């Protein structure tokens, strides 16, 4: 009965590879996000989607391409991975527009680029 789930939990890969992280929420929310947590634990938004439509793209390199096949899923594909992409990536979801809903976070995916 996990609310927001992410796969994989850990991802270790070589520079230059392409990888994907998947996120699913079963809360019935219509807004989903990707946040990046760097090595200093600082959290910053990357993308938001509302009803499968991209809303926020926070000056993220275009090597990062989110995709939302439906309201319950938001995936993150990363091309040509660089050392600086090493971080923990969190998916989050939020209750429908107009509500005061807080964001619910997934467990995170720790990406290590070697």
């Amino acid at each position: 009965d996990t609310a927001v789930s992410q796969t994989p939990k850990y991802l270790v890969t070589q520079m230059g590879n392409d990888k994907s992280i998947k996120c699913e929420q079963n809360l019935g929310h219509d807004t989903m996000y990707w946040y990046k947590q760097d090595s200093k634990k600082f959290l910053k938004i990357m993308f938001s989607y509302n009803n499968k439509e991209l809303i926020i793209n926070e000056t993220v390199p275009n090597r990062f391409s989110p995709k939302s096949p439906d309201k319950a899923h938001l995936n993150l594909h990363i091309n040509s991975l660089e050392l600086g992409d090493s971080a923990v990536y969190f998916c989050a979801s939020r209750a429908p527009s107009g509500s005061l809903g807080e964001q619910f976070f997934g467990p995170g995916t720790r990406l290590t680029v070697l």
Partner: protein
Amino acid sequence: AQSVTQPDIHITVSEGASLELRCNYSYGATPYLFWYVQSPGQGLQLLLKYFSGDTLVQGIKGFEAEFKRSQSSFNLRKPSVHWSDAAEYFCAATNPMFSGGYNKLIFGAGTRLAVHP
């Protein structure tokens, strides 16, 4: 620019002692405010939230926070800390003027809490 500041990077308290973690915000209007906790290797769990009304809000795990508009602060408190409270604590804010996907969380840098037995 909108920002959230947590002045204390690292705090150590003894088990059973009281705790206060500071948070200040800088927004054009009063934001919605949140405290999240991140245990080692875990995701973020919401402790409590403030939208409007009563300035003292109660959360889970015995935490509370007080909103002070005059000081642009939203400090987190707990009267008696348990060893299991050792974690990273994040204060966050959103702009209430934005809804849907435009509503993003701005996080503070986090405060790492260590608890001595």
